[in-house]
């Protein structure tokens, strides 16, 4: 282990406000930003609040603002984002803070529900098990469009990076709209009419300016901006009666 240390500023507070606290953390090889936060909690400040689970980029719970950019901290190497050894950590933007680095994700997922982000099987409207498996050719155009957005882990990085969410708190946001687009391309789903109605208008896809911060920052390389454009296209042809 080297003698070098990182200068880490961590935002500490709650919904009523807060301020940065400074910590010195030993530099290590192959150190992730989540490792740094964990070190602070275990060795320096046991009451530091933050959230993580899988540590391997699957669960989507450890996202924070790292030096001004929303990132998944478990898969973000310190050497890539803090070449000068200085880190500034804040809770995700555009979400209410519970305490320190932990934000309340409820508004984020409520918008998934508002965008009709749950699968509604066409063949079993009452919830009974269908008689047979649905066959969806993997190479079909719709399946591929759904595949492009299906790997979302719900980390909230796109939502925290979106200017429109900051300007319009009702805006559904990139993740919920991307989810709606994957379901709009699911040929087994039967609720698309209601879904497209739910994602139209000033709080929906038409509020998007296509500035693509979501696409730029998505750690899974999903293109929510492209999904939102897809929803606009569908609504355009729908309005023309096609």
């Amino acid at each position, binding site marked *: 282990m080297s003698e070098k240390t990182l200068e880490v500023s961590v935002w500490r507070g709650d919904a009523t406000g807060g301020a940065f606290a400074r910590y010195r953390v030993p530099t290590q090889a192959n150190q992730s930003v989540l490792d740094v936060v964990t070190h602070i909690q275990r060795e320096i400040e046991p009451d530091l609040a933050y959230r993580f689970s899988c540590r391997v980029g699957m669960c989507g719970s450890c996202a924070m603002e790292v030096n001004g950019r929303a990132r998944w901290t478990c898969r973000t190497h310190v050497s890539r984002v803090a070449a000068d050894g200085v880190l500034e950590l804040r809770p995700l933007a555009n979400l209410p803070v519970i305490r320190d680095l932990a934000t309340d994700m409820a508004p984020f997922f409520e918008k998934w529900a508002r965008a009709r982000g749950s699968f509604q099987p066409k063949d079993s409207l009452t919830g009974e098990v269908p008689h047979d498996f649905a066959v969806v050719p993997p190479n079909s155009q719709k399946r591929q469009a759904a595949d492009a957005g299906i790997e979302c882990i719900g980390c909230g990085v796109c939502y925290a990076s979106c200017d*429109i969410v900051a*300007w*319009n708190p009702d805006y559904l946001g990139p993740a919920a709209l991307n989810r709606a687009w994957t379901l709009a391309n699911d040929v087994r789903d039967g609720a698309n009419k209601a879904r497209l109605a739910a994602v*139209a*208008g*000033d709080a*929906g896809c*038409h*509020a998007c300016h296509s500035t693509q911060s979501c696409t730029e920052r998505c750690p899974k390389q999903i293109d929510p901006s492209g999904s939102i454009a897809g929803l*606009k296209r569908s*609504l*355009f042809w*729908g*309005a023309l009666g096609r």
Partner: protein
Amino acid sequence: MSGPQLWMLQRGSAMLLALGVVVHLVTIMVAVRGGLSAAEILARTRGNAAWLAFYAAFALAAGLHGAIGLRAIAAEWLGWRGRGFDLAWMAVAVLTAALGIRAAYGLYSA
């Protein structure tokens, strides 16, 4: 008016304006560089239905496009949302378009 309709109107008017602004600017440059006098301009526009149609469409597109855009900016930056503001923006669109069309008609009927 619904979200998809406003969006279509905004995109449609943008396409019209993309063409219209080019024609408008070229017309201005030709008139100025060619040294046309007011009387010479009026001689070309008087009774000319093509110019009237072009500038009427241009003014209508500009009025709609400007008002829809300002509506979005005002909603995002000032929080001006709701039916009252929508009606006000519709008035802005109609007024802007009407002033432009009146000017075009003035050149036509002068």
